């Protein structure tokens, strides 16, 4: 859209076929929810849904950057848990202190990942796995393995509790701003194009004279920062630092990114589609809760996971069907 002279929907769809599936599924699910459940579109549901899912949206966006370069960041969940504790400890100084410092701690974990991957040349999977374990242990150590209550007297909890237009919690507003920022970076700056090019061919990018290492490092810093922000939202939303949270968050993030059409091997990906992917995964839970609320059928938490897995599979299948034609050879002989 941003890179089109004149917008032509048909061309846009054909060029972005890999992310069309997620939008269709998302709108279908929203429509389904609105038609079937009375309070689905109500202010309460919308704002609590957005508040809770803002954490997943933000780590998914960071993950999207990493995956586009062909890497992976398994440490995001643990880092979020760690920074939620940090944020809780800093909460007496107010949001304006706790938020940036906690994000900075996340960035520091990202820097550690970047150092291991770029300087020590450890594969991303292993390097971020080590950071994941380290951050998890660290979170338990600094918290004494218990939740750390935030200071309700400061403005810290306003982030999750106070709403703009009585609808949008500050958490989602901040995440939205971050998202637009990341989107602009990816679509309109050299850095963004370099990140995409690296995933499409790291050697080629080096030979083209692109600043490959710098871009790769930034991607892990961004992912770490996003995880840090998720930790702040976690602490403010639940009123406590949660050293035990964050388990399997990296997997949901990867799922959101993939459902959004980003190639796991890198080189292709989009921030809006990743957000749509995260919303979609959240919505499946939301709708199952409503379904349970109607009392007709009741899905246990385990069944909910199974259903979510099945739904994910269906969307990805649909997506690969749609992109098949694109991979086939085009143009001249």
């Amino acid at each position, binding site marked *: 859209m*941003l890179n089109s002279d004149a917008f032509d929907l048909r061309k846009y769809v054909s060029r972005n076929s890999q992310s069309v599936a997620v939008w269709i599924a998302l709108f279908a699910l929203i429509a389904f929810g609105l038609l079937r459940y009375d309070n689905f579109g109500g202010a309460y549901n919308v704002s609590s849904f957005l508040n809770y899912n803002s954490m997943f949206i933000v780590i998914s966006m960071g993950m999207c950057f990493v995956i586009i370069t062909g890497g992976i960041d398994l440490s995001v969940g643990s880092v979020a848990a760690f920074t939620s504790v940090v944020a809780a400890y800093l909460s007496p100084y107010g949001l304006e202190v706790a938020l940036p410092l906690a994000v900075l701690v996340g960035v520091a974990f990202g820097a550690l990942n970047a150092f291991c991957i770029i300087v020590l040349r450890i594969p991303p999977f292993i390097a971020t796995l080590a950071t994941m374990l380290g951050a998890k242990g660290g979170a338990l150590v600094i918290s004494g393995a218990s939740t750390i209550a935030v200071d309700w007297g400061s403005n810290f909890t306003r982030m999750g509790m106070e709403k703009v237009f009585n609808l949008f919690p500050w958490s989602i507003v901040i995440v939205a701003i971050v998202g637009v920022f990341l989107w602009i970076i990816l679509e309109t700056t*050299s850095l963004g194009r370099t990140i995409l090019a690296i995933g499409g061919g790291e050697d080629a990018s080096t030979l083209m004279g692109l600043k490959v290492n710098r871009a790769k490092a930034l991607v892990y810093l961004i992912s770490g920062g996003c995880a840090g922000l998720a930790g702040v939202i976690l602490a403010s939303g639940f009123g406590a630092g949660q050293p035990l949270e964050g388990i399997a968050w990296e997997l949901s993030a990867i799922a959101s990114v993939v459902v959004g059409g980003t190639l796991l091997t890198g*080189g292709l990906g989009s921030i809006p589609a990743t957000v749509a992917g995260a919303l979609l995964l959240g919505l499946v839970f939301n709708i199952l809760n409503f379904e349970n609320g109607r009392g007709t059928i009741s899905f246990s938490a385990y069944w909910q996971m199974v259903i979510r897995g099945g739904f994910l599979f269906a969307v990805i299948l649909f997506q690969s069907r749609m992109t098949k034609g694109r991979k086939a050879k085009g143009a001249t002989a």
Partner: protein
Amino acid sequence: MTTLLEMNAIRKAFNGVAALSGASIAIERGEVHALIGQNGAGKSTMIKVLTGVYHRDGGTILFNGAESVLTTPREAQATGIATIYQELNLVPLRSVTENVMLGYEPKRLGTFINWREAHRRTREILMRFGIDIDVKMPLGSYSTAIQQLVAIARAVSLDAKLVIMDEPTSSLDASEVKVLFGVVRGLRDAGVSVLYVSHFLDELFEICDRVTTMRDGQTVGCVKLAETTKLELIAGMLGRDPDEIAQAGMTEFGGGAAKQGEVLLTAQDIATGPRLSKFDMTLHRGEIVGLGGLLGAGRTEAARALFGVDALTRGKITLKGAGAPNSPAEAIRAGLGFLTEDRKAEGIIPGMSVRENLTLALLPKLTRNGQIDRARERQLVQKYIDALGIKTADMEQPIRELSGGNQQKVLLARWLANEPDILILDEPTRGVDVGAKREIQMIIRDYVDRGFGVVLISSEFEELVEGADRIVVLNEGRSIGELKNPGITEHKLVQALAHTDEVTA
């Protein structure tokens, strides 16, 4: 001061094996300078040492009057060296525009890429090469030739003092080569120097001023092209006596000698789409059938149809008396093999060894009682390394470390070792040096003499004319005639191509 670049006594070894041992080259300003040598002589390594991809073990480099201490390709670009590497340095998933503009995108407010301007400039740059394509499409959706031209366009647009082209014409046809030469002359007239690596010696005489010859990592000479002959160049590359080579001659290889066996394959009036609308051919055992035509004539499409990649919309293929394959997997089971023109897509597995790459498709045949017969595997691999003259430290060397021409030989060996009844070869000698080219042509002849059939596609008329027993001539997706050896000359082939209008009318 007219010398732009001076590389002196360059040394470079990989894991103790010397790739360069005292190589030198000097390039004047505004000169088109050729660099030639056999596969593995060290041409690409020399270039990569210059552009900072590899760090030299010894020697000096003077560029533009100053000692050069480049450590990354980026610095090389910044000092005015633009390079088209042999293995295309492009990102197929990204758009054409991105591939041309990456790192040099026009900006608004110094930050935001001005896409409209980027697309416009890309279109303008490509127009100089006579290419008019949708620049927003992923580069990978275009042919190898277009991709190669895009790589060239990018390098030329970088406003460099020296443009390096490592085998730029390997995937181009005659008309595209002509366009490229026009661009090269334009660069020269603007005072830009060009370093030109190619195995097509005739090209050099047309476009280059001087030529440096390398052999086994060393420079063996530098002469003006006006003062030398093709024979002398070949002799220099191979390190042999010119007379000896002239005697060995260009005779042993020749089409038309084949005894035709039973019919292996027929294609009757087949079509797969707009780019292959009417194609007929027959292939017998013991025969090499060439497909002749210009780029876009439908040669590759014909091969894809025979191999079951593209579904037929019309017509009939008969394979050894039975029906046609519906997929490549079926085709392989039915005894077909297809060496595609795109080395990377064809499936070199870069990190795996020469041995593994060569026997990948062969493992079922090498398996005894569920175990791979290692001794036989090694024996077989060694046989092909010797037969094709593959230059490798040993068979366990990762294939990505081989020179471009040697990688191509491994791929060819993979198919030959598989012994399909019908082997389709799309540009089998791309990037292969003159010496090895003859060897390969002989091996192909040998192969059909053992009772197999080969379909040969080549943009080099010489290779077709000398190699094929018959040539099916294609134009705009239609087979329009057939030439039979002995008796085909390049002239006749060109005529057949030129008279297409009358024939089709």
